[in-house]
């Protein structure tokens, strides 16, 4: 009997300390992340991108889906390690904006190619990553 996961493509996980992108411009950051994604890597970024970087990532991803035949897009999630009296998303976002964002060590950003990462389910305090 043929195994169900026989079509699972190879991938690797790239752990990216925030220092790896700290000095880069928004264009360079997004480009660096997308290059890794195109290489079938699941990127785990220490910290998080700024809102305008996240939206730029979505924008550039769509441009790539439009131009690269086998590329379907990305799955993206940010998880914060606060528990218990977890401040709201907005409080964190406001704090983030106030301090020029980000690279907070308390956040982790998971970005993977949609062909590999089927879904990232997120609740306030947990994250589940489902692979294709």
């Amino acid at each position, binding site marked *: 009997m043929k195994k169900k996961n026989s079509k699972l493509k190879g991938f690797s996980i790239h752990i990216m300390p925030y220092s790896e992108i700290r000095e880069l411009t928004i264009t360079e950051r997004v480009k660096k992340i997308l290059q890794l994604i195109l290489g079938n890597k699941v990127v785990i970024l220490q910290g998080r991108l*700024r809102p305008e970087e*996240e939206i730029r990532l979505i924008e550039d*991803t769509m441009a790539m889906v439009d131009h690269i035949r086998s590329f379907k897009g990305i799955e993206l999630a940010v998880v914060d390690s606060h528990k218990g009296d977890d401040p709201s998303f907005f409080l964190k976002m406001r704090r983030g904006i106030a301090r020029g964002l980000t690279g907070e060590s308390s956040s982790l950003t998971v970005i993977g190619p949609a062909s590999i990462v089927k879904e990232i389910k997120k609740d*306030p305090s947990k994250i589940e990553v489902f692979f294709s």
Partner: protein
Amino acid sequence: MLKRLSKFFGGLFRKKDNLKIGFYGPPNAGKTSLANLLCLDWTGEELGTVSEIPHETRQVQFREKVEIEHKGKKMLLKIIDTPGIATKIDYEDFLNYGVAKGEAKKRAKEATQGIIEAIKWLDDMDAVIIVLDSTENPYSQVNLTIIGNLLARKIPVLIVANKIDLRKSNIKKIESAFPEYPVVGISAKKATNMSDFYDAIFKLTRKV
């Protein structure tokens, strides 16, 4: 110099009329259904077509000078309906809805371009109505990214929890996900709770 002065005074005395109100959110949340309801109520014409197939709206569509009258107050709006924002598009997903392969590929291509267009329009909005499907998990990164960008741009936001007519609807989950924003529950399909929705729109435009 003259241009700057004109812009300053223009802004100072700008009448809060014909405000640009954008409808944003993930695909299939009911943005076009709601925009249609609003346009039909006040202009007699719908804005776009709706479908159960995701990414039915693949271009930004708008209606100018939509005059809304509610509880004795009037307001003139420009209603802007945008394509649903997503992080992935796979033409094969459309095949499951019976769309032919060629059409599915065309649809996927248009959907990617529509998302880019929707993002580019963000800067032009005076206020935004985020339409969410109240039967879905609100904590998706797309929702958080859109709201994060509106917060960073200081654009007032109203969250609409749509599809409250469905059994799985959970407005409380949306309220607890976004406690700093007003949330109004409606059903665009059944035109439920529209009076509260109009109250909320008037409040929203006061923040512009």
